[in-house]
């Protein structure tokens, strides 16, 4: 009897232990930079939005799509050689920074605005902006609002911990108007609250609004998006401070997408371009030089980024532009040579 008791205790303990240990990541004895962890794990842990059209949405089978998602894939393609080796971790506006700080994610690609505070006291580093937008507002057509000044006294739905939350506080204050914020952490709940009529106005990055109008409204035509943007929101990938190599990779993967567009390298022609006559293209795609080695990667990293994910134009068009249901103009997100702000630094 005693032996059985002991045995049973052992099995219970063993199963508990098995349960606790199985999902835990491999224990590392020594300190290793993020790349090492990512390679050991075989996947990039990428924090993405819970659901914003164009940036990150999951379909019913859990496949993610969007501009932010494409940057997770680009980094995985560069580091691991396969753009599918990403584990997407949806984070809310509130949980995103703790998730990065605590190591739950390796990179934060989630419509995150670069600000001084976040860069300094939150301990983040930001790559080059992958998208420029600003705070926008959606209102019901029936409310008769045409400009910001008509919104006095409105109830505004917004997610907490966002720059948008602070922007509307400053905007309404500067216009001397009252408003009531309704702050709901869960993005979908917040959008639902606006469409069910809890709020008069929904405030978020303007580029996110058309998608919500198109897919979440019962009748999209009942809602309008106010003209103009009301703040500067350069959205970029965030990483933890204290790992410069990882930060460099994020930075140059982003530049590679810009440069590829500028040099006319796309998914289709990247194989031919590898042997093009242009030394800049050859160096970027790794036919010559050793840029990859300098980053601690192999020489094909940028080739894989373009081959598997595409250049910036392709990424944009698939998620916001001509090939997407949203059909948004490039605007600020055009290359600098076309009047936009996208400016890839030289890859030399």
């Amino acid at each position, binding site marked *: 009897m005693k032996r059985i008791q002991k045995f049973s205790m052992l099995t219970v303990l063993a199963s508990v232990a098995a349960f606790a240990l199985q999902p835990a990541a491999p224990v590392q004895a020594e300190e290793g930079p993020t790349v090492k962890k990512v390679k050991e794990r075989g996947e990039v842990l990428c924090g993405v939005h819970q659901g914003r059209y164009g940036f990150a949405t999951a379909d019913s089978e859990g496949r993610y799509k969007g501009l932010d998602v494409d940057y997770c894939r680009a980094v995985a393609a560069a580091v691991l050689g396969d753009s599918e080796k990403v584990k997407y971790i949806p984070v809310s506006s509130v949980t995103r920074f703790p998730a990065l700080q605590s190591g739950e994610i390796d990179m934060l690609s989630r419509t995150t605005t670069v600000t001084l505070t976040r860069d300094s006291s939150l301990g983040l580093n930001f790559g080059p902006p992958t998208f420029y937008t600003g705070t926008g507002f959606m209102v019901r057509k029936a409310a008769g609002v045409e400009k910001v000044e008509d919104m006095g006294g409105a109830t505004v739905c917004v997610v907490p911990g966002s720059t948008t939350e602070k922007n509307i506080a400053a905007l309404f204050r500067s216009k001397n108007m009252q408003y009531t914020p309704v702050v709901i952490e869960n993005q979908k709940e917040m959008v*639902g609250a606006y469409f069910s009529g809890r709020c008069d106005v929904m405030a978020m990055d303007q580029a996110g609004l058309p998608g919500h109008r198109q897919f979440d409204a019962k009748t999209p035509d009942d809602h309008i998006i106010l003209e103009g943007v009301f703040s500067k929101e350069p959205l970029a990938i965030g990483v933890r401070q204290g790992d410069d190599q990882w930060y460099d990779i994020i930075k140059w993967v982003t530049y590679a997408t810009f440069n590829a567009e500028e040099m006319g390298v796309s998914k289709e022609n990247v194989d031919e371009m590898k042997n093009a006559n242009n030394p800049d293209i050859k160096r970027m795609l790794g036919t010559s030089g050793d840029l990859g080695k300098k980053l601690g990667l192999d020489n094909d990293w940028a080739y894989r980024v373009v081959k598997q994910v595409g250049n910036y134009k392709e990424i944009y068009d698939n998620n916001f532009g001509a090939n997407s249901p949203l059909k948004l103009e490039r605007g600020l997100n055009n290359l600098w040579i076309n009047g936009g702000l996208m400016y890839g630094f030289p890859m030399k």
Partner: protein
Amino acid sequence: MTDTTAPIAAPPRAEGQADTDQPRSRQQPPPTEKIAVLRWMKENLFASPGNTLLTIILGAALIYWVPAFIKWGFIDAIWYTPDPEVCRQSDGACWAVVAEKHRPMLFGLYPYEEHWRLVVALAVYLGSFTITLIRRFWHWQILVPLWTVAIAVISTMLWGGVFGLTFVETSQWGGLPLTMVLFSGTVVLGFPIAILLALGRRSHLPLIKATSVTIIESLRGVPLITILFVAVNVFPLALPDGLEFDKLVRVMVGMAIFFACYQAEVIRGGLQAIPRGQYEAAESLGLSYWQMTTRIILPQALRIALPGIMNHIIAALKNTSFVLIIGLFDILTATTAVMQDPLWRRWFVEAYLFVAAVYFFFCYVLSKYSQQVERWLSEGRRF
């Protein structure tokens, strides 16, 4: 708990009646049916003017509401349709929302083609659970192999990665199976901690006592949410670099410790109820502290504390729903996510009623069961 439907004035039950299932009518003179009904009504509905008034008011409300509810919930209800338009045309409940969305609600983000694995896991879990509840099977020789096999099957089904099953990470687990994993994990991990804390609080050693009291009182003083925040946001920062724990495990440990602090107080109540003589007798037999505790004191204390223990186990089941806040996809989180679908959003009442019914079923069965166990354990005992 007493049988609330029985009138207070009913004669006290004979000893052992609950077990022999004697019909109650044997103790009362058998009056004719009609008079019995009338007398029952007079005693229980119209005993005094105030009582009569109350009966009339409540009765009127029932007559007004119950048919309306039945009409909404059953007669006019749409039971199945893939087309939300059909529901929109109807005045009744749209149970079709449950029919249409039951898979994401019950199984969350788990890969769609693999849902059958969750059905197997749930069936094995509920089966083993039911067997465990039956008194006849209360033997180590039965329960230990049963649960060893059950845990093996359930883990294989949930994780996969062997026998050609695709591997599914814990972050993709969801719905009812996740609720079940969280609940069992909380109770299994938490109970030993609870016993240690309760013993610690009763200890004569001041430092051990102080530590237990501090842990119990400070954790009981804060909401579960903040403990989950610590488990999710702060705990990883406190680990040395490179050491990581799965979020699900962290959350489970947090919930287990929270559960243990409440359970410890219940067990302490049981410990306090043990007469001094029991300790003295055990000591005079030369038993050591642990022998005395495990063989003499704890079995009795746990029996005395059983109602409270069961209450907190039921609370642990309900508390699993708190993971909604930190984004684990239990059945409630999955349902709120499903309810964001603009086509089906307006029938949230039906969807939430369904989830409520699931929780209600398990909690109610557990609470009724705990009353039954109390009766079993009190057989032939004086306290």
